[in-house]
């Protein structure tokens, strides 16, 4: 069994490395083929002024005349040593630029993630409990309306109401100029972006929980439990919810990239200094060194989360595990026979 587990995780780790390799290749080739002058990303604005002879020399020196595959191997070996080049816009090492922003994104995305899934579970259970009563209907109606509003427009409307009309909350940034880092100040800057991130995703997952629970409630074992005399609450929480949790966990893992995408978008609208805004800026200014690392980073998170979801759904649920062992046992029997 332990040997089996070792092989299982080993295979998953191998799959992760392979996907990461493919991703890096894709990112590299797309960035090289995309419009824009690669010299610009090394020399900045000076690239436009250099003479043709210097240009040939520079291209020779940077190896831009080599075939793309050779260039890729060179870039990859640099990347393995942690050298991703210099950001053309910020004039410093790419990793330095990212290091300064990543905490903000983690704060916004992480808090949003916890809030989304906590509230979604709460709302979903409440709706299933009150199925077709007025509360359930109200929550469903409001949820549908909220989930229809595009995130960027919700941000605009909130900024209009809370920072332009009421003047109670700041409209952009992570902290006010001058007072870098007071807790209250940071929290005030976090409220509006967080609201948008949460409302953008909340109903999708709450509705998922609701419909899973409603399916579960129609199963035969619930009827048996009722006949046995268990209370509704006990059945809902101890039986129905419990059998939904494993799939909920794997959905949580799958949804990390989506929440991340939402965070990126919201950051851009609120000019919140995080990775999303950085990605947006680097795409607009064709800062490919930076964009490549950001894509790699986001892609790695996506791949990791998908693997995690697979492992969760394959390992955590005792039903699936039992099925698997049953299958292998059957196979062995067949082999013996």
């Amino acid at each position, binding site marked *: 069994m332990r040997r089996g587990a070792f092989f299982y995780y080993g295979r998953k780790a191998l799959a992760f490395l392979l996907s990461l390799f493919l991703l890096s290749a894709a990112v590299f080739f*797309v960035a090289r083929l995309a419009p824009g002058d690669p010299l610009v990303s090394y020399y900045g604005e000076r690239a436009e002024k250099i003479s043709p002879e210097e240009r040939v020399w520079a291209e020779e020196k940077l190896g831009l005349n080599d075939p793309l595959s050779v260039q890729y191997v060179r870039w990859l070996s640099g990347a393995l040593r942690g050298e991703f080049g210099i950001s053309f816009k910020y004039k410093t090492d790419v990793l330095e630029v990212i290091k300064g922003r990543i905490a903000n994104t983690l704060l916004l995305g992480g808090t949003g993630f916890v809030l989304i899934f906590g509230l979604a579970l709460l709302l979903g259970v409440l709706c299933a409990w009150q199925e077709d009563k007025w509360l359930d209907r109200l929550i469903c109606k409001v949820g*549908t309306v909220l989930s229809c509003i595009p*995130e960027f427009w919700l941000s605009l409307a909130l900024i*209009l109401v809370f920072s*332009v009309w009421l003047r109670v909350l700041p409209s952009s940034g992570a902290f006010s100029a001058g007072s870098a880092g007071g807790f209250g100040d940071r929290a005030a800057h976090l409220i509006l972006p967080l609201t948008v991130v949460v409302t953008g995703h909340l109903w999708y997952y709450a509705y998922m929980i609701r419909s899973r629970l409603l399916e579960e*409630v129609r199963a035969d074992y619930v009827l048996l439990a*009722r006949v046995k005399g268990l209370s509704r609450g006990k059945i809902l929480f101890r039986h129905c919810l419990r059998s939904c949790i494993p799939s909920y966990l794997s959905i949580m893992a799958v949804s990390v*990239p989506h929440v991340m*995408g939402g965070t990126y978008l919201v950051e851009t609208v609120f000019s919140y200094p995080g990775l999303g805004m950085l990605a947006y800026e680097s795409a607009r200014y064709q800062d490919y060194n930076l964009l490549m690392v950001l894509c790699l980073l986001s892609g790695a998170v996506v791949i990791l989360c998908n693997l995690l979801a697979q492992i969760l759904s394959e390992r955590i649920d005792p039903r699936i595990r039992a099925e698997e062992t049953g299958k292998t046992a059957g196979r062995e029997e067949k082999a013996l026979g």
Partner: protein
Amino acid sequence: MDNRFVPVGIRSTERPPSAKRRESLRGKPLGPLLFLGVVLLGCLCCELFLTKDPTYMDLAHCSVPPGREFLFGTDTMGRDIFSMIWYGGRISLFVGFTSALISAGIGILIGTVSGLAPRWLDTLLMRFTEIFLSVPSLLLILFLQAILGKATVLSLSVVIGLTSWTSIAKVVRMEVRQLRTSEYVAASRCMGGGLPHILRRHLMPNFFSSILFMLVMNVRNAVVAESTLSFLGIGLPLEVISWGSMLSLSEKALMTNAWWMILIPGVFLVGTLLCLTNLGNFLRKTISRRERNL
């Protein structure tokens, strides 16, 4: 003697036709359909009732609040918002429908091939689909858009369509897997029916109802994607009027407290999205419900 069985004492259950008609309309999304109809008609025939040119920049009347002359006011470049709404809606909805059709085409193709293909090809295609599904579509669109360069209405539709076919492909594959063993497909094959023929005559009619709702949702998602991208300045440029590119002026509007430039296009956008969602949900709910045991 008359042998017919005549029931006695049962009230006639035949209701008048008017009540029947009312019954058949209950639960149908009439409001959303009406709203969508008005918006669609307004966008298609806007030449008939518009007196102002939406692209004309009336620099003497910049950021005028809604009033008698400019029904919905003007934007920071002096364009009339009322006429921009209808012209812009035309572009936004065109992008929505075109990319939904493209995504349905790709989804049906990949789903059918995957459903009929041998196991290894099926696994390969589904893995590919899953990878596609897991990447946030906005990032993917950004990436594709960066490669294609300056966006036009058509290129944007293609990009959005290329990134949103996955869910349709999955459902189609599942349906085709179930259908392909059925006798009529086998019979059609025996008589020499090719893949296009089987797809059109035997498979499509069966799975069409289950992807119809996704088609409507894809229209919605495409409209959202278009407006988001144009708002960010990566989608349609400012000169091509759409609901998203109208909103891309909102940063200036926020500074001058010009609420009409944000709220009015937004209300049309959100209203259309809401109606599309309602329509989609109605289509999905036609699946029968079972009693709960709790």
